[in-house]
């Protein structure tokens, strides 16, 4: 039976996507409103499982790109997510069969839903990150050697820049320049691939995963129970192989930011509350990448570091991190492919300039297992 995504599910999806955004990925709120309006006008899109994709289908990941601060002003335009798909279709001379999220963390969980609703094609229940990451190098696609090109970057005017180059890293640099040149609030398709490749490369069920996470928190809020208990239970129920750990609970006592190469980079210090003692440091570059306590590693990229408001369980983003904010920080093990040597090359500590060796979250000694 076909499964459709309804308007009612969008708030849970955006809540879950924000949590999996690990501090980045942009605020899903705007994406939720825009997707809601698309579904109201164009109908609910079908959610298709990765393994149900025909091998010869043309599957296209889609994402918005640009600085979150620009997106907050320029919002999303119309037809936004349709434009790059149409431009790609005319460039390739064939129809796109399904769209997929590039990243499930943040606003980009909602963009393919907008596209699917408008185009009347399915959206795939799977993405290439299982979280949010800053560049198109940090994807399962790149790890598996798929080509990012042609990348189609479009803006609100319907302008398009098509980047068709051999190296993914060059595609990343050129797309980034295109995003800036097109006004900083763009929508792109990238890594167009066959259904066969999609089955190999997409992390399955991640859209359902974000939805389950968000729904658990929503239900806990509605029933007045602890959203963090609900979150932990939802994570483990959905995927019993996950390692989930409460890393810290405390208050932000300092945030230092710098802008390096177009990224929102910085550190935050947290002081423990409840039974948590000591001080922890969070390092971020668009997303939370590394957390230490008294100089000892608690978690490091590509494992997920999710900071949540300790009252509401809403995701606390790196951009809005502020002195006095009360947080609970969870660590979640990343997808196994990210832990392979190719995976760590693309998404591991060294890819983000850390000297630390990667240590899987479950191998770090700690008392705080949920």
């Amino acid at each position, binding site marked *: 039976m076909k499964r459709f995504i309804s308007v009612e599910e969008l708030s849970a999806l955006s809540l879950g996507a924000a949590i999996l955004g690990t501090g980045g990925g942009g605020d899903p709120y705007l994406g939720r409103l825009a997707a809601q309006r698309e579904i109201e006008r164009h109908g609910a899109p079908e959610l298709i499982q990765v393994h149900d994709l025909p091998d010869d289908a043309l599957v296209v990941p889609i994402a918005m790109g640009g600085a979150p601060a620009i997106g*907050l002003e320029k*919002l999303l*335009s119309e037809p936004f997510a349709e434009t790059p798909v149409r431009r790609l279709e005319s460039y390739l001379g064939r129809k796109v069969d399904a769209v997929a999220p590039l990243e499930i963390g943040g606003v980009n969980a909602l963009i393919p839903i907008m596209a699917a609703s408008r185009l009347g094609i399915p959206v795939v229940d799977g993405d290439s990150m299982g979280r949010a990451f800053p560049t198109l190098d940090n994807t399962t696609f790149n790890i598996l050697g798929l080509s990012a090109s042609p990348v189609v970057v479009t803006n*609100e005017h319907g302008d398009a820049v098509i980047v068709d180059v051999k190296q993914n890293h060059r595609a990343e640099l050129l797309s980034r320049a295109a995003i800036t040149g097109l006004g900083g*609030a763009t929508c792109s398709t990238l890594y167009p691939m066959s259904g066969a490749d999609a089955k190999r490369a997409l992390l399955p069920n991640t859209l359902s995963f974000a939805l389950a996470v968000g729904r658990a928190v929503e239900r806990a809020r509605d029933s007045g129970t602890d959203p963090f208990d609900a979150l932990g239970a939802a994570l483990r129920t959905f995927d019993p192989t996950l390692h989930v750990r409460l890393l810290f609970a405390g208050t932000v*006592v300092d945030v230092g930011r*710098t*802008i390096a190469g177009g990224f929102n980079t910085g550190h935050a210090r947290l002081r423990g*509350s409840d039974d948590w003692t000591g001080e922890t440091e969070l390092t971020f570059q668009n997303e939370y990448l590394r957390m230490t306590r008294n100089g000892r590693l608690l978690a490091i990229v590509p494992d997920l570091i999710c900071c949540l408001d300790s009252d509401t369980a809403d995701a606390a983003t790196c951009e809005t991190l502020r002195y006095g904010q009360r947080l609970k920080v969870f660590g979640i093990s990343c997808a196994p492919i990210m832990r392979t040597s190719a995976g760590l090359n693309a998404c591991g500590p060294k890819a983000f300039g850390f000297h630390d060796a990667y240590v899987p979250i479950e191998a770090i000694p700690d008392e705080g297992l949920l």
Partner: protein
Amino acid sequence: MRIGVDVGGTNTDAVLMSGDRVLATNKSPTTADVSGGITSAIRSVLATAGCAPRELAAVMIGTTHFTNAFVERRRLTRIGVIRIGYPATTAIPPLYGWPAELLKQVGSESRIVAGGYEFDGTQIAPFDESAVGSAARRFRKAGLRSIAISAVFAPLNRQQEERAADIVRNEHPEAVVSLSSDFGRLGLLERENAAAMNAALADLASHVVASFAQALRELQIGAPFFISQNDGTLMTAEYAALHPVMTFASGPTNSMRGAALLARAQNALVIDIGGTTTDIGVLQHGFPRESSMNAGIGGVRTNFRMPDIVSVGLGGGSIVSPDGAVVGPQSLGYRIIEDALVFGGSVLTATDIVVAAGLAEVGNRRKVSHLDARTVERALESMRAMVERGVERIKLNASEVPVILVGGGSILINGQLRGASQVIVPPHHAVANAVGAAIAQAGGEVDRYYSYDQLGRDAALEDAKAAAVQSAVAAGAVAKTVIIVDVQEYPIAYLGGGMTRVRIKAVGEMHFGSAGTGAGTGALAGAAFGVDGGRDR
């Protein structure tokens, strides 16, 4: 001398102050016409202190009237919204996502016209002035007089919003215009929502501010009057009549600032216990610590800076389980005066517990004499634990801090609290709100771009802080009292060179000459206030 007034939903409180001394206080019922309650409260404090109206230097009024009207969807104006930004932004039109019952009152008339700015200051598309004109004509024909205008990146450049306002006024001379750039920060939707909320309150605001003026005329008070705004600074009555949403957070801000003064504490927790909830906030240097979350008001998302408040479901009317183990969050609310045991009702409430314990005299004590001592003990313990958990949640560190109790429900907490170095129940705590209004301050703000690469972050921040202090002094603040209360840095990544937008807010004590001599009054009357005057571009 000056008077602070708090116009609440139930009561209108007034305090007469000289410097930071409270000379007289009064609580009067809020009247439907607003001015009646104010007149009665002010007349009472003047009489108590034997003070003549001409001795007053200023009157400061804080009110939750506009917040309540919006949340309760009362007396709202139908509005038109013009957004400048086409072809960007179109996937989420103005007012999209507002609650249906709210749209029923304000309507859903909006237009998106070409224009707006890119992050680098260039135009998204040529500004379509003629489309603004035709939107204004359409709104006029539809009988809409209150118009909100927003533009993409207006916080960086408000020229197009201002030009659009001129066009609207030209086409539609009766129009009252709300500009999104008056309501601050980046985030088009939230800023536009604030402007639209403001527009929806236009009629009520001009009516209410006129009622304030009328009350003062009746009392023959010639001193200028001011309205307190969200951040604890003042705006002129004229400015407030056009910017009612700037009062939205003034209630908790005034309450906490009043508590600070009454308890003579600059750094403390303030616990305001009402009938249904207990609100716990943090005072830092005499100001509320602000929340980092986006505030939804009446179901509409905004990015107002609200005080960071932890709310606990405990108040005087909280319903207590028969064994005393569970207190709240259900509350009798205003029905407490009929349904609580001490008032002859049949529901066990938190107030009944403290009366039974002999900690307060409310209603008829004999009606609770049958309560089991263990039940009372257990309920007192639950109440204390609820407040202590709230205190634990909001504190930045484990060290003990002074706690100030205000509000009518402060009888619920007796003696020590875990985490508190001392518990202060200051005199006049029931009118902390009006005291907060009376001591509202003059503020100044700068909003500038710096290249951190060229200047260095520290030097840039120093420069901006100095400018903010200067701006506050120009707005009437006493120089040696001015402090920096807010620093925001927005890195503009794509501009390179470490370009960062820096917004800094400074506030200081309002300069008062000796009461009524005219020196203070002159400084007040001639000064520019808050967002309006402090702007430095």
